[in-house]
């Protein structure tokens, strides 16, 4: 393999696990294959490994039950929060009156808190359930916002208001990825506070009914922390500790 191609194949091999990378690079060096065949071998192995992950239910759950539907709802919450902020602070009114068109500062703060906790818990679950396919979950969570970007640009909304949910979601995903444990106490506190604020917003007619779906990630965290706690007591692994 020539001098230019080899570093490129080495770079592509970073997609593989450390041990496997060593073995594959060693094999390619030993056989002195062409750069093209080397690339095919590395990418072929990577895509076969990725394909193998999708034989389990976890990646499907993380991508199509957690990331895609939740990011679709969170995108609308982001727009709603931004519109309310513009109305209250800059007295600009966008064509977005329901259900948050009558919100004051109190309900705006409530919605900001909810946006952060919904996004964080969704990201945490996507990151902890299937970390090797997190890039797919991440791409799917951007999909609704990217799809709606031209439409909202026409409505003269700043582009970033579609992505307000991303920073807390990314933070949650990183913590989920690093297997950061959420204690049962913290998870319960988060779920109870989220539920209480959702009830508050709903009782003030400031919650879109579909947003009730976003309550489940925080309660899922409670269930995970509880199972993980009882699992470690009995010597088995909890949901958060196992990854596809």
């Amino acid at each position, binding site marked *: 393999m020539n001098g230019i191609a080899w570093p490129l194949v080495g770079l592509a091999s970073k997609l593989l696990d450390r*041990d496997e990378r060593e073995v*594959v*690079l060693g094999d*390619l*060096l030993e056989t002195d294959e062409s750069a093209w065949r080397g690339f095919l071998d590395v990418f*072929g192995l990577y895509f076969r490994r990725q394909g*193998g992950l999708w034989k389990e239910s976890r990646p499907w759950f993380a991508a199509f039950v957690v990331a895609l539907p939740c990011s679709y709802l969170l995108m609308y919450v982001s727009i709603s929060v931004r519109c309310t902020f513009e109305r209250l602070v800059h007295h600009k009114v966008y064509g977005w009156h329901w259900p948050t068109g009558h919100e004051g500062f109190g309900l705006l703060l409530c919605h900001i808190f909810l946006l952060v906790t919904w996004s964080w818990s969704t990201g945490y679950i996507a990151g902890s359930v299937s970390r090797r396919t997190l890039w797919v979950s991440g791409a799917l969570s951007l999909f609704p916002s990217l799809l709606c970007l031209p439409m909202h640009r026409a409505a003269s909304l700043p582009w970033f208001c579609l992505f307000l949910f991303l920073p807390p979601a990314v933070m949650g995903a990183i913590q989920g990825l690093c297997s950061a444990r959420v204690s049962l106490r913290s998870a319960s506190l988060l779920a109870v506070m989220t539920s209480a604020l959702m009830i508050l917003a709903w009782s003030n007619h400031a919650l879109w009914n579909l947003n009730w779906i976003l309550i489940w990630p925080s309660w899922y965290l409670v269930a995970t922390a509880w199972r993980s706690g009882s699992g470690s007591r009995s010597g088995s692994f909890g949901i958060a500790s196992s990854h596809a």
Partner: protein
Amino acid sequence: MMGEFEYALVTVAAALGEDAYGVAIRDGIEAAVGRSCSLGALYTTIDRLEKKGLLKTWMGEATAQRGGRAKRMVRVTPEGVRAAKAFYQSVMRVSRGASWVEARTRRTS
């Protein structure tokens, strides 16, 4: 029952004995089957067979020829030998009387 490629891999690995590792097995398969074999196909099949308990793998020594990188050594387990033997016998049974093995069948019967 194991598949055709799995059988080829186990057979080549068994023939190589102590020298069975990725590149050697791939070369053996390519020579026997006459088709190229990708590292992706090889290592995912090795993983699958290891999960079934038909192979055992471990990291071998690093050599200068490989740029100081380790080999993934392979050994066929007794279960692997049994599974390969069962596959071979079933292929022989199902082939009995087939036109392309007629001469051999007549000679052996």
